[in-house]
């Protein structure tokens, strides 16, 4: 009983309460735009013009039906593009990271630097020429026009991180496998990869976030509405719902759900991925 009281007092000290109060105010302000978007998403245009702030009834669920029909194809495009990109980013990145970690070959360090240097070069430098290249390859208005450059750019981070990780796996594990006659491929898929699944998932999530949120490249390379990922599909959607603010907000909120699901399922990897900027290089 006594223990409990003293613990309670230290937890609910004046300092802790004022900190919580201040954080609560900032938290409410942070979420305010999204709360208003949620409230407005249930209004028709008359409810919105007369009562923009407070909830109104009946709730216009139909806004969500309208918005869903318009944005779902963009979401599927994004799932396809980000999903396929992530799979190949991981495969290619891990393959290269593995040989950099565990094999010797001529010009190894030069080659590694050759990959690594790309992390320092902003994509804006080659935006124009990459666009011309992809157009000349006939990949404009094509999923591959997004996927191939995403794989190419995304694998760099994976090569860098997985090399460091594979170098720290004890050599004895590989040696004993080798004595048992394991092949190079076998050691990669049955020793190296299973031991690094945690870091691989973090890399997967980081890659999905970055391709999912990419606005610039799809804007340059995709004109066909049917092929648009959600990041630019929403711009098109905005034009379609200009006269129905409720449906507009509903669409914006629906568009936020997929990454929110990823966050709920893999919040640990998500958070680790976010802060990795601090350890990069």
């Amino acid at each position, binding site marked *: 009983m006594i223990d409990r009281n003293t613990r309670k007092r230290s937890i609910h000290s004046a300092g802790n309460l004022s900190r919580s109060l201040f954080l609560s105010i900032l938290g409410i302000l*942070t979420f305010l735009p999204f709360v208003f978007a949620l409230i407005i998403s249930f209004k028709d245009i008359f409810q919105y013009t007369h009562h923009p702030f407070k909830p109104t009834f009946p709730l216009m669920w139909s806004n969500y039906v309208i918005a869903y029909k318009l944005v779902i194809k963009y979401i599927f495009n994004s799932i396809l593009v980000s999903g396929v990109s992530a799979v190949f980013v991981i495969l290619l990145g891990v393959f290269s990271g593995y040989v950099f970690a565990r*094999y010797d070959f001529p010009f190894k360090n030069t080659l590694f630097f050759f990959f690594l240097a790309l992390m320092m*070069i902003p994509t804006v430098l080659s935006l124009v020429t990459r666009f011309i290249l992809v157009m000349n390859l006939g990949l404009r208005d094509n999923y591959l026009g997004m996927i191939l450059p995403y794989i190419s750019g995304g694998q760099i981070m994976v090569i860098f991180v997985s090399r460091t990780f594979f170098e720290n796996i004890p050599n004895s594990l590989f040696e004993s496998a080798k004595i048992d006659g394991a092949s190079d491929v076998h050691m990669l898929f049955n020793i190296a990869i299973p031991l690094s699944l945690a870091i691989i998932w973090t890399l997967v999530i980081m890659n999905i976030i970055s391709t999912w949120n990419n*606005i610039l490249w799809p804007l340059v390379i995709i004109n066909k509405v049917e092929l648009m990922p959600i990041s630019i599909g929403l711009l098109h959607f905005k034009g379609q719902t200009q006269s129905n603010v409720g449906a507009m*907000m509903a669409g914006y909120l629906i568009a936020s759900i997929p990454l929110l699901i990823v966050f709920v399922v893999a919040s640990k990897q998500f958070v680790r991925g976010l802060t990795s900027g601090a350890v990069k290089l």
Partner: protein
Amino acid sequence: MFSTFYKKRSIGIVRRPSIFVLSMLVPSLFLVLLFNYYPILQSITYSFFKWSGGHKKTFLGLKNYIDLFTSSVFYISLYNQLVILVLRTIFLIVPALLVARLIFGLKTWAKASNFFRLIFVVPVVIPPIVVLLIWQFLLDGEIGLINSFLQAVSLGNLTRAWLGDPKTALGSVIAIGFPWVQGTNMLIFLAGFLAVDESIWDSVTLEGVSSLQRFFYIDIHLILGQLKLNIILTIIQLMQDFVGIMVLTDGGPGTATLVPGLLLYKNAFQYAKMGYANAIGVVLFVVILSLSILNSRIGKESNQ
């Protein structure tokens, strides 16, 4: 077991790359050469040419660069970029630092500190395009919620198209995201505070200085590494991120919110001046590269 510590090097010494090594490396290398190095070298080369995207190119020497550095539009865009850089960097750093310190201060109350940590991380998950479009709607001149609010509190004379008025456009673009508690920066600061040795905090508490003094004179010094890192990462990000402005105002009205990245985009894709656009790209590249090098120096320092 101990042998693994000093025998961490590669398994067999292979003079020539084996078929395995080659087959693992070639796909990565092929893609990087095609989609990264080829366009990079091309864009540097073509920055010295008159080029509209086709096969026809005319060598101009330094003319694109001279045109750029003598164009008043470029200096307007640089000025806007500088204003955005200074203010946005402050906005994206200071609230995050403050929140991280407050959450760290709550560590005796684990439930609350975990709750607030989650609250300020969740917004990071919302796609930037959604954040941009919601704010664009809030700031809209006709249907915007901010104008409705001003009318409701009888400040109707202040209403305007916030992003469409040359006087308020740049300010509105900068203000987006209020109160700007940037989740990623907050997490990095929090990790910094948590990494400080417990005994240092104890000795600091005993000195009897006010908490505000302590924050500025002591706390900030303890996480100086994270602070420098976050500032440079934020600046690098801001320099490259013109797409937000493109979505919100397309650089307008007039040149009120134009930034160099957007100037590049417009020259390339609207005026078909691709050589000139590449020259802008090269200038941006030099600036961002210098910042990245500075960043990795600081990264190494703070890792030691």
